[in-house]
């Protein structure tokens, strides 16, 4: 016999699990799509345009700065989609593009790209525009307004580098109830009025493009958790941390502080807990560390909501969690097999 072979030298192990980075990322994109779809259903053309703009700006930036192949792993698409989901639906497109460029440029490629960043890129983008354009980013649109598929929210097409127009008159004209333009959190904070739980759950309230339906977020998040694409301990501990803190303050002063249920369902907590705190790049790797990280995020979120100057604190809480991750990782090294318990 004269079979010939080229010998391949490869390190152990010679086989690998089928889920590689691309597969995971593709699935997360998949899980985000229903949320984006719901946002478009709620807010119409403006939301669709904003989504496209943000994702495109993320991809463009990744392509400009990234090294070669990095576009193919889908992670920039996730960043873009999630960033879009955290922005108000009527956010001027040019500001959306600024957010996308910052997210990838400042939040990711500056540190060396995928896996090297320390802060969640999407939230870096959002935090940046929140600090840069605080008025525009707190200008909400009532959902299901009339003519959302035939026209745009007036702020959407603001000329680059100019101030978006005032929308309160427009909102009054197109919405059934002008006051729905305020988010449930703002209503709770400044008016002490709690929106009904079913509205929050189903997502018929105003807010960021992707944060309004807790149900949808939950379903998509559970899909990812079931397929082991995310670490379920993170969302669970974030939500637990938030619920416990909220319940405690509610007990102390029920008049002023909303209850745990409202806390869980309102604002970006669900989206943050399931899709953003779970970004593994900025979260700890150790089993105990993950739980501490989640609790920290939950607690800080509620503290900012109740006592801070801002109505919502999820974003900052996650960024702070990211910042604390290296420390948490160091302090929670698992006990090695066979090592004496200290």
């Amino acid at each position: 016999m004269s079979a010939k072979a080229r010998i391949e030298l490869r390190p152990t192990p010679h086989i690998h699990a089928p889920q590689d980075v691309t597969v995971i990322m593709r699935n997360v994109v998949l899980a985000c799509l229903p949320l984006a779809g719901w946002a478009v259903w709620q807010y119409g053309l403006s939301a669709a345009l904003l989504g496209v703009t943000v994702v495109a700006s993320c991809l463009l930036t990744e392509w400009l700065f990234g090294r070669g192949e990095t576009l193919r792993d889908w992670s920039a698409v996730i960043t873009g989609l999630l960033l879009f989901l955290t922005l108000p639906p009527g956010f001027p497109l040019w500001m959306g593009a600024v957010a996308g460029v910052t997210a990838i440029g400042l939040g990711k490629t500056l540190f060396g790209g995928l896996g090297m960043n320390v802060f969640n890129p999407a939230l870096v983008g959002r935090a940046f525009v929140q600090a840069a354009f605080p008025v525009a980013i707190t200008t909400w649109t009532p959902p299901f307004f009339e003519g959302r598929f035939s026209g745009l929210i007036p702020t959407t097409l603001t000329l680059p580098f100019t101030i978006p127009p005032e929308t309160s008159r427009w909102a009054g004209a197109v919405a059934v109830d002008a006051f729905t333009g305020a988010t449930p959190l703002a209503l709770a904070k400044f008016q002490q009025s709690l929106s009904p739980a079913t509205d929050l759950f189903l997502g018929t309230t105003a807010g960021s493009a992707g944060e309004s339906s807790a149900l949808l977020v939950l379903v998509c998040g559970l899909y990812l958790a079931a397929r082991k694409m995310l670490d379920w301990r993170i969302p669970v501990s974030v939500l637990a941390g938030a619920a416990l803190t909220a319940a405690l303050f509610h007990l102390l002063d029920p008049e002023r502080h909303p209850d745990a249920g409202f806390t869980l369902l309102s604002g970006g907590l669900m989206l943050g807990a399931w899709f953003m705190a779970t970004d593994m790049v900025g979260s700890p790797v150790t089993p105990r560390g993950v739980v501490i990280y989640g609790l920290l995020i939950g607690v800080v979120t509620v503290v900012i909501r109740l006592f801070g100057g801002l109505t919502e604190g999820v974003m900052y809480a996650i960024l702070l969690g990211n910042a604390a991750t290296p420390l948490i990782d160091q302090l929670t090294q698992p006990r090695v097999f066979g090592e004496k318990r200290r």
Partner: protein
Amino acid sequence: MRLFRRKTFSHGIHPPDHKAETAHSPIRRLPFPPRLVVPLDQHIGKPAVPLVHKGQEVVRGEPIARADGFLSAPVHAPATGRVRDIRPMPTARDRLTPCILIDVYEAATQEVLWHYPWQPRKMDRQALIQAVREMGLVGLGGAAFPSHVKLSVPEDKPAHTLVVNGCECEPYLSCDHRVMVEQPAELLRGVRYALRATGAKRAIIGIEDNKPDAIRLLQKLTAEEPAIEVEAVATKYPQGSEKMLIRSLMGLEVPAGGIPLDIGVVVNNVGTLAMLGALLPQGEALTERVITVTGPGVQRPGNYRVPLGTPIGFVLREAGYRGEAGDFVLGGPMMGPSVSDLRTPITKGSSGLLVLDEAAVRRESPRTWPCIHCGRCVNACPMRLNPAMLGRLAAAGEYQRMAAKYHLSDCFECGSCSWICPARIPLVQQFRVAKQWLRDQERRKRHAAPPRQQPLEASGKEVRAA
């Protein structure tokens, strides 16, 4: 009850096992190759010292190299023939291992012609251990640790339990399975010898629950024998690692950096003990072993009994090879090394030959990503290390920190972390590099004078002189 609380350990992984291809093919004997390459260090410890010279005639079973000290093992001629040369040859362990090359007599019957005068029934502990030592038996489970050392339990550290490792957790391999099914009598005899040699009170045979036939068979055969228990353990990699198996069966953790004996346990592979049970009554030495030849690149996968020293090229010709390129793995896919030369021989520690063809290799594409901090490796590592951190440190060349703060030395290179890593980072390889670098560093520190002039000169000369 069994369904819900199976005996197992924490972490670990579930790779597809691919055992069906060979698990039901009975053990067959492979013909003798025209030339054998018999390495002098087929075991952990000092290499054996040749007793023969170039041109000398040897008969099957005759000692051809003696053990060099206690932690060492003798080597016996696997076939009748003539010593062609003694020189460095590539083996799975090293590119230049001193080996005895034997030209096999084609005409010989290849019966074992050399016997030791052992009388198992009359032998006491010491005599048993001495016999094990003389027959050159080493662990056939993979590590090739000299068995007589393992069985020599010191007075001050008695052993209470003998754990018999029938897990065979590596995917693709099935030789232990076949041995359990085909040679249960030899196996149980070997277990009894080992109990006698170690002074342990009981033996537990641990078998992964994906081999129900072996479990049932052995349970039936030991029903009357209270000293020997047969336990099913969960099918999970690396269940067969002795530390994990002890944890699963007995709930005990071997101390970090320690050995099973520290908690009164001795672990032996089923193949080792079956071999012991087969050889001792015959007065024969270890000259062959059972291996699984399998993988997509093999035409006739199966379990084969092969003489030690058979080059894998010969095995492949016999079992049939297909494909253009292949990854030739000595052992299982998780821990077995690729070989770079088809003259590499099967040795005492080789439990299988796995051939991954080009398509399989391509599927495990070498594309890697940076670590995305997903923590899967942390949740897979059976030793509960932090492979992610170790990997990052290794990439940065921070080997000392790996050892000092992240327990590098506790990693037994099982590959669970690399298997599961979605970024496909070659973590184990990084750790092996780190360990070797540290050993080098240590060696350098020990002899301040540089030993580097011609490092291989010494071994080359020695072999030539012999």
